[in-house]
């Protein structure tokens, strides 16, 4: 049958064939597809690594601070027993509102940290086994809970020495655990996560990021194996690298796990040009439920208070205040309550919270020379109140 199209094409292309060499090459290629994919995979991985390393090199250096334990003014034994005696005073005297308020005004966090770490800028700790450390930390936690919601059915033994208390702690915890909500006590090391953003992401964020990554990896694979459009491949590689960077870049959130990280993370938040990080010192730190505070002496007569709120990872920085004053106040949501942070040499010996209508007073005593952070839980009927400060001599201060 005469077909001019077929004839023309066959005539024009008659000498062209797919060479034997090319056939052999094709056979070799299909049997080495993994090798063909390898250079591209290596390119992508190397590019990602280079980008991540570049980011690490150019990122802002972390403020280096050193927390020394050489000059710890108190021992864990003394402070723990002081706390125990305060606790027993409340146990033995029902309706002692003043003692309860004073007990709850102080945080045990620094004491817990000293027990846990064995060395602290605030307290020198004895040698304890891991089990003893965990028991003593947990006991402090339940003592605070008991003072908040007393349970008179629990018997507490008369203990005179720290060693005795250390021995009795496991038995006491056995009673307390059954009566109060069990809360896992995590050491700082257990709380710490690597400083990569991946470890700070919520599960749903990780899943959605991985799905997004998978989609782009598939798009890239399909592009590479079919059209091989270099423009789109570059975009896809860019997106994949960006996703990896987001996951593996250092977290931008400031988390405070211990005294060192608390000071490290706090210093950059005080937007004060005269601050010298090497001079800055942590004066006190406290944790009240979901809020952690750091009181910092920034040198040159400047002081600061940084606040960290708890989230699913740890205590993340939420705000700071600083200035030349030695007294800082803050409000804690949720509990709710008033926080008063006083720097060394503040001169205040008492603070009264006075309800303006009922004139009901909540009062806490302070050491006029010591830096500390206090918390006063404000009752619901305190709609509007005034804070009054009194000096060592009992004179009202402005």
């Amino acid at each position: 049958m005469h077909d001019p199209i077929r004839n023309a094409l066959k005539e024009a292309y008659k000498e062209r064939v797919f060479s034997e060499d090319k056939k052999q090459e094709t056979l070799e290629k299909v049997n080495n597809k993994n090798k063909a994919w390898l250079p591209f995979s290596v390119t992508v991985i190397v590019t990602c690594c280079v980008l991540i390393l570049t980011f690490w090199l150019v990122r802002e250096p972390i403020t280096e601070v050193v927390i020394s334990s050489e000059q710890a003014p108190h021992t864990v034994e003394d402070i723990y027993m002081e706390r125990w005696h305060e606790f027993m005073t409340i146990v033995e005297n029902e309706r002692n509102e003043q003692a309860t308020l004073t007990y709850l005004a102080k945080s045990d966090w620094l004491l817990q940290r000293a027990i846990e770490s064995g060395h602290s800028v605030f307290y020198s700790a004895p040698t304890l086994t891991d089990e003893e450390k965990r028991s003593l930390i947990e006991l402090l936690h339940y003592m605070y809970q008991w003072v908040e919601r007393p349970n008179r059915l629990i018997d507490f033994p008369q203990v005179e020495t720290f060693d005795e208390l250390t021995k009795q702690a496991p038995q006491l915890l056995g009673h307390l655990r059954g009566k109060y909500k069990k809360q896992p006590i995590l050491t700082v090391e257990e709380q710490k996560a690597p400083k990569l953003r991946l470890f700070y992401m919520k599960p749903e964020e990780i899943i959605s990021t991985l799905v997004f990554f998978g989609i782009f990896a598939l798009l890239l694979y399909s592009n590479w194996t079919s059209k091989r459009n270099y423009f789109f491949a570059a975009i896809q590689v860019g997106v994949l690298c960006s996703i990896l960077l987001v996951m593996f870049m250092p977290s931008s959130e400031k988390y405070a796990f211990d005294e060192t990280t608390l000071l490290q993370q706090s210093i950059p938040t005080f937007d004060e040009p005269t601050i010298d990080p090497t001079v800055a010192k942590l004066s006190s730190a406290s944790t009240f439920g979901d809020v952690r505070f750091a009181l910092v002496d920034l040198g040159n007569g400047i002081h600061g208070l940084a606040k960290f709120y708890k989230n699913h990872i740890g205590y993340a920085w939420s705000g700071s205040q600083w200035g030349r004053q030695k007294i800082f106040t803050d409000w804690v949501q949720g509990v709710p309550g008033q926080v008063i942070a006083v720097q060394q040499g503040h001169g205040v010996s008492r603070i009264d919270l006075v309800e303006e209508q009922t004139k009901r007073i909540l009062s806490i005593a302070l050491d006029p020379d010591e830096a500390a952070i206090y918390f006063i839980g404000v009752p619901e009927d305190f709609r509007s109140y005034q804070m009054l400060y009194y000096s060592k001599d009992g004179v009202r201060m402005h």
Partner: protein
Amino acid sequence: MNDRDRLLTEAMDTYSAYLLQLIYTYVRDWQTAEDLTQETFIRYYRSLAKFRGDASVKTFIYRIAVNVCHDYLASWKNKKIYVSELFQKLLKTNATPETELVHKDEQQQLVSAIEHLPTKYKDPLVLFHFAELSLEEVSQVLALPLNTVKTRLRRARQMLGVTLIEGGEVDA
């Protein structure tokens, strides 16, 4: 040599020359046509596990070839080459595509016209006339309704100025 290698070798022995020439009508460059033919066989090899034998090997392999050509024509690489060639042609002042065509004989002109057909008309034309697929097979390969294939084939022939009586189809 395993079964897949054997099937690939058979396919290359049977169809490689046809495929190379068919692909050339799309890309108009023998080196590229060889590479795309190779790509067609690689895709065929990788698709062997999925090939259920619903269509003939010939139809299956031509479908892959047409897709490879379409992918190439849509690719960035091809557009880059096309722009570069166009630029070179504009620089040549002594001979235009039209004047070059005058010197070719009638058959060469037809081939050149086929090569320059828009893809959507070239697809059914080369598959039907050159690859010798039936209209139904062309419809399968291009995933187009039979009537669309017929219409495009008729239109392609009209564009080439060819009148044929083939397979019951009469062109005016």
